């Protein structure tokens, strides 16, 4: 005698159906929703590669083994990680599995007439009765029709229903979330994003080689870049004299949409990018490029022009590297540009205002091997001085020169540079549409009430009015009181 419980055989299809039911159940959806919220947390506390690559590098240099372990579980790329993706993909499958059948059901229900008037109206939540005058059904029909109820007329009764907008809004809300996801996906597959530092007076030609950094979506070809040319005419930054905070950035450019088109003057501001179809050009950052001339021992120019420096603080103290690979031996200048110079007893040379009111460039001169041919990518703002020796230290104001053993450097002046960010996102309009539909759907579903109202004249000559609100939505009592008053003809 075996006491084993015999479970019915599920089979493969049964198991699939079971899993599908589980996945599309409301409880699972709710758990996935909460998991999505929790899973988003680490990305806001741990630096992410996309937003803050410098901080991530700091993690790696401070505690390499911990950082490697964290990297293995994608803690530096949370929002692109397999586990985060798994949660939202499951959530969306669950959502589709829930919403699509409901949409079909709702589509049929919305075209059907309300069910027949039940027998015992006095059991309803709201009920009132009085002696009939005879025309109540006609009056009620007219009143409810005017309020756009859907009505089923019976011999001596009316069954009316209203509030399907609630479910319609609800479904549209959920469907619009899918649309947003499609927009995001489409944008990342067919989009691109790149940055280029352009000195004032220079041109930006929209081809891959002019970018400092460039990322293409998986399905976008590099040839898809629109062939525009932007000339940076001038850039004006205004700062508050009390707080040193920026107040306004204005960038004036001349734009040629495509080869052969006329040049058009345009203004770019932080909140108003240049728009070329689904490609936008943003003004994202700015700084200074000191203009230098480096000469060799006999006075031939070895390097001349503006060199972009990287701002380090709000007063635009900027660091940079002037590399002269053609000199023999190679020469490098590790430099700091101070737009409005001052001296601090602890930090040394500092800048006290972001505008170039009293500019100065401090630098050390290095001779040896710049290491440019090692194949290891190098920062343009730094010099690897491990194979070099320092041969001088100097600070110059615009127009001044300094001679060192083997050559000279002249600090001619400076120009501002701007960082143009070029972004193509063909999916954003879908996401926007999804967002708008989501809000409208939400409003419809949260602020409409679905309810049924019945009116009947019984055989004994009594009028019965009853109502039922779905989800115990408030307000039906008031609505019914008004209806009863109107039907009784009371003033």
């Amino acid at each position: 005698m075996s006491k084993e419980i015999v479970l019915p055989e599920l089979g493969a299809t049964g198991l699939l159906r079971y899993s599908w039911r589980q996945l599309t159940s409301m409880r699972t959806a709710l758990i996935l929703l909460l998991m999505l919220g929790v899973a988003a947390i680490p990305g806001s506390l741990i630096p992410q590669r996309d937003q803050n690559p410098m901080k991530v590098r700091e993690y790696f240099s401070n505690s390499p083994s911990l950082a490697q372990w964290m990297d293995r579980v994608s803690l530096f790329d949370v929002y692109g990680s397999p586990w985060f993706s798994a949660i939202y993909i499951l959530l969306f499958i669950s959502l589709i599995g829930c919403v699509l059948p409901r949409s079909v059901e709702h589509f049929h229900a919305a075209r059907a007439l309300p069910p027949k008037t039940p027998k015992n109206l006095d059991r309803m939540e709201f009920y009132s009765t009085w002696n009939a005058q005879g025309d109540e059904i006609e009056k009620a029909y007219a009143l409810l029709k005017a309020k756009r109820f859907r009505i089923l007329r019976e011999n001596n009764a009316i069954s009316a229903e209203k509030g399907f907008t609630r479910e319609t809004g609800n479904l549209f809300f959920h469907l619009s979330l899918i649309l947003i996801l499609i927009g995001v996906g489409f944008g990342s597959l067919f989009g691109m994003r790149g940055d280029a530092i352009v000195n004032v007076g220079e041109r930006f030609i929209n081809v891959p080689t002019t970018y400092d950094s460039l990322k293409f979506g998986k399905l976008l070809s590099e040839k898809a870049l629109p062939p525009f040319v932007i000339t940076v005419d001038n850039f004006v930054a205004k700062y508050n004299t009390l707080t040193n905070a920026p107040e306004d950035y204005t960038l004036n450019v001349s734009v040629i949409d495509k080869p052969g088109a006329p040049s058009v003057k345009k203004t770019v501001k932080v909140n108003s990018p240049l728009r070329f179809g689904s490609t936008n050009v943003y003004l994202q950052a700015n700084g200074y490029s000191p203009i230098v001339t480096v000469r060799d021992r006999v006075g031939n120019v070895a390097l001349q022009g503006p060199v972009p420096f990287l701002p380090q603080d709000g007063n635009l103290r900027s660091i940079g590297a002037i590399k002269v690979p053609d000199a023999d031996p190679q020469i490098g200048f590790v430099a700091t540009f101070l737009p409005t110079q001052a001296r601090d007893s602890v930090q040394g040379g500092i800048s006290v205002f972001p505008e170039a009111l009293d500019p100065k460039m401090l630098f050390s001169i290095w001779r040896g091997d710049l290491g440019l041919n090692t194949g290891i990518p190098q920062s343009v703002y730094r010099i690897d001085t491990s194979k070099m020796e320092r041969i001088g230290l100097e600070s110059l104001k615009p127009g001044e020169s300094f001679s060192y053993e083997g050559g000279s450097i002249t600090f001619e002046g400076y120009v501002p540079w701007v960082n143009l960010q070029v972004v193509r996102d063909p999916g954003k309009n879908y996401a926007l549409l999804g967002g708008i539909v989501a809000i409208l759907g939400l409003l419809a579903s949260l602020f409409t009430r679905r309810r049924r109202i019945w009116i009947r004249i019984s055989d004994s000559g009594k009028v019965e009015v009853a109502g039922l609100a779905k989800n115990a939505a408030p307000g039906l009592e008031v609505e019914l009181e008004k209806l009863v008053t109107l039907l009784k003809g009371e003033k």
Partner: protein
Amino acid sequence: MSQTWAYISNYSIYSAMAVFTLSFFAHAYETAWAVRAPQSADSTDGNLITKTLDYTRTEKAARIATAMMILGFILLFAGVIARGISAHRVPWGNMYEFSITGALAFTGAYLGALRKYDLRWLGLLVSIAVLLTLGTAVAVLYRPSAPLVPALKSTWLVIHVSAAIISGGVFLLANVIAGAYLYLDSMERKGPRAVWAQRLPSLEVLDQLSYRLVAFVFPLWTFAVIAGAIWAESAWGRYWGWDPKETWAFITWVAYAAYLHARVTIGWRGRRAAWLCLFAGSTFLFNYIYVNIYGTGKHTYSGL
């Protein structure tokens, strides 16, 4: 000229704080003095002393409390407006300004709800919360009135930030009510309510009220997030970038969405719903406090 307006703003806000303090004392008086010990002759049955509630004695205090709340609201409103005039912009440029506007929205939400529901019992908690917010703003977060950084110069500042602040005010009110629910519920589990708590609404009413507030303001919060995305598209070159503030706004949105689903679809009520409501509200607070102060994202502007 603008300096004068900045002073007017500061003095209005100090006065509002004084008036809110008076309101707080009036509420406290009402709550405490309505409890009436019986006349010694009435009941001497053992040690049991039956206390009763008598609001006729404290009616005046209650009226004063609400009147002070309204006066405080008006002064605070004047302070926020004057701050805006002094800086020639909407007064939502830094955390000090968010805090005073947030306190205004919170008081407004309370006074608005008071017209419809008998919420005077909540006044004590509201006045404490408003005083704490304003106190922190004035003592810790104050910054001189100054123009905006370029990224904030946009019409979306008005739209996005006002929607976020109003949502925040209502979320916090819902949170206070959910907290009151949990407190009273555990009190009722031990026996009948303490006398002072008897005037508070029934658990069912509190439960419904916090749900209504959330359901009412959830679309507005959704709008605030989407308006922020539209703004970010024109200011930062992407509509969504998982910036810490964006991430936490998303987490708050997800948490309240879960709360609404739990109530409407699964039928959660009572304790579980109240805890979920508190959790969702705390994500909002975390976003406001932690991310503003310690965050490194794009929502941090010079000096908070």
